């Protein structure tokens, strides 16, 4: 399975944020969407997630035999950088509701086993979500997306402002979950992208461009990406 984006354009008034995004993402890989602040990473995700209308272009799944399948809401899992959770529920209540609402899912774990998998502390599980820390809210968001098992996982800077331990736990979860789906992970931090992702894609000047990661060990690799961003900026 592939996720194909074809000539995607998004404008805000006269400002063209996504100019002509054309790219093919492959199943089983984590793509690091790297771009500077304000380059349009969140806009790109919002377009794919159907939160905002696009001006032109299309995106779809392409099967093994080349057939096109439209992207349905249930195909997408979206983790926003500032996790918002229904604050009036406890973690357990939210998880119960979420599993019940997804009748098509046959959970292979109990609620507590899911919590254990995501390393959500026991004393947090029956507290209101509004009292959760940023990191635990992030874990909850990730857990729900794991349960829903979407074909396409959009992660919008999910490691931003997480402490070292939680960030490392989250990275492991993302790595463990990459099989059977396409994961696009946006960040403006080069080190995170290099560490976690199988592929690196630059979003700059409204376009997506792959970066060859074969020479990852090369000391000049980071320098090359920075120069690429800078050059395009000047161009």
């Amino acid at each position, binding site marked *: 399975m592939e996720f194909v984006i074809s000539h995607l354009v998004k404008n805000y008034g006269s400002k063209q944020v996504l100019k002509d995004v054309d790219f093919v993402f492959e199943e089983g890989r984590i793509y690091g969407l790297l771009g500077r602040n304000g380059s349009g990473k969140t806009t790109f995700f919002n377009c794919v997630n159907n*939160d905002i209308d696009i001006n032109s272009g299309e995106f779809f799944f392409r099967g093994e035999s080349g057939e096109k399948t439209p992207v349905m809401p249930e195909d997408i899992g979206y983790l926003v950088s500032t996790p918002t959770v229904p604050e009036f*529920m406890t973690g357990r209540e939210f998880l119960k509701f979420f599993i*019940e609402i997804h009748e098509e899912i046959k959970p292979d774990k109990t609620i507590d086993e899911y919590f254990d998998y995501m390393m959500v502390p026991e004393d947090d599980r029956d507290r209101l979500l509004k009292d959760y820390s940023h990191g635990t809210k992030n874990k909850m968001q990730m857990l729900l997306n794991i349960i829903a098992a979407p074909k396409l996982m959009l992660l919008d800077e999910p490691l931003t402002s997480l402490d070292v331990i939680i960030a490392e736990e989250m990275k492991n979860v993302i790595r463990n979950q990459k099989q059977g789906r396409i994961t696009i992970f946006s960040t403006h931090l080069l080190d995170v992208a290099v560490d976690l992702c199988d592929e690196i894609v630059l979003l700059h000047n409204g376009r997506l461009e792959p970066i060859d990661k074969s020479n990852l060990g090369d000391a000049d690799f980071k320098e090359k990406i920075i120069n690429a961003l800078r050059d395009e900026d000047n161009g």
Partner: protein
Amino acid sequence: MVNEFRKNLAKIIHLRSIIGYNGLVFALKKTPVIGKLIPDRLYSTAFLKVIYWIFHIIVEVFKLFIGKIFGLGMIYLAAFLLSDQYIEHELGGGMSSSAVYGNLGLFMFLLYALCGILIRVPYFNCTTEKEYLVFMLRMDAKKLNETLICYDLAKLFIGYVMAGIIAVITGAPFWLWLGIPVLALAVKFLGIGLQILSFRLKIKLHKSLKISTVAYLIRLTLVLLAGPFFIIFIANGYFIPMPQLVIITVLTVIAGIWGLMIFIKTDSNLHRRALHDNISKTEVKATSQYDNTKSFKKIKAKGTIKGNKKGFDYLNALFVKRHWTMLCMKPVIFTIIVVAVMILFVAEFIYGYYSRFGSANCWNMVITNLVNLFTFRAFSDALLPVGDDPAFEFLRYVAQFHLLGMLIPLSIADNSFKSTQAMFINCDNSLMTFSFFKQREKIIRLFDIRLKQLIKINIGPVIAIGAFANLILFVTGGQSYPGEYLVTFLAAFLLSVLTSVTWLALYYLFQPFTTSVVAKSGAYRITSIIIYSVASIIVWIPLASYILAPVLLVFAAGYVLFLRSRVNKLAPKTWKIKS
């Protein structure tokens, strides 16, 4: 020094103009419909900036002349009219017309100045331009305030002198013309001195220098309370003798000089700190970052949901349980108030028996007549206390032909708008990031559950308003056809359903709220205004209840089905987080 003052003033006016112009463009861009047509380059259009400058100068001149002339002009006008009366009725104690004019004018000005607005000084409130100049551009806070005070007092002086010319033409003495502007400056300096003194005291007590409005409000209340006594004092031909007035004036001027000295001796740090502690919201913050969400965050983890509720039913039940106060308090309070009014109504009715038959026979008569009423439908006996009271006839007419008017109290009791805000900020805002929440069948399922819930929340006010209308019907002759009481309840219920479904559908069709719970959608506002306007006309239409109820039943059913179908069709696209 003059050069520095001129430079500072130019900076302030320039910045004020930029902030004003950009604020205007920003507000226009946020205006529904028009906003989308306004290009960004408007921020840098020189021609429009010049027009704004001209407009700005006109406003300054307006404030200078009209503002000052209006304030002081009213005092002069009152003094002029009163002095005529004093002379005509020989109350001036031998003073000439001009002297009485001067005496009354000075007296009223002292009251206005010392107790009212003039002594209040705004120089330590940190406006947007002050915030930029002092805290970003690092301008000396004292020099900034000096410049602003000089500019402001110059305007005050010139405005008062101009107003005084009219006073002199109408017979005021020359000393009043020139004396009042000087006195005004003294009062201003006195205000500044007192303000600085209070800051110094707060610093000693390690308190914030935030300017309290309490003292001002107390002063204003005292002035308003004392006002009638002064009016009576003057209207009865009394006046304060000139020597006493002169003493007060001289003392005020001395106090003003003291205030000026205090101001001169104050260092820049105090000015900076006072400004810092009194920063008001900037235009940008005020429009884009106003935090409305605090009142929605008072959630307590109360209990859990018993029974076998699942999925969206479970979500809704939990939501209502944890937001009970927020959702239900207003309808409950409304219901209690209506019930209390009904009790007063019944008490008043019984008092009619008491005043007619005395305490010994009152209850006897009430019970006997009620038994007669229920057994033989003898209304004329039961309604003895009200008889042919025309007020009751009018109320009966309203209860029979103006049931649409129940929409007004029902709308007051209705909490659906706030409920949709709570739904968005505490629930949907987060769930909208999950794909399942955008699926058509799930959206409509939750819509149905929520509509039922809103209708349930409003059931208290529906019963109370229906009961009230029926009570009126009852005490004014009872129902005129079988089932009229039920029809009244039905009408109240259907009107409440219309209110609830309107708010809920508007929320799903426009999702107007930002993450600060501000309703920003122009289409939402326009649609709400249209609905309000139509409803405010409809409530006045007289319609007999037996016609209204079936019409309302058919209309409500059609309206609910129509809005539901719109939600089903459009909400997957429209019900989303505003970017």
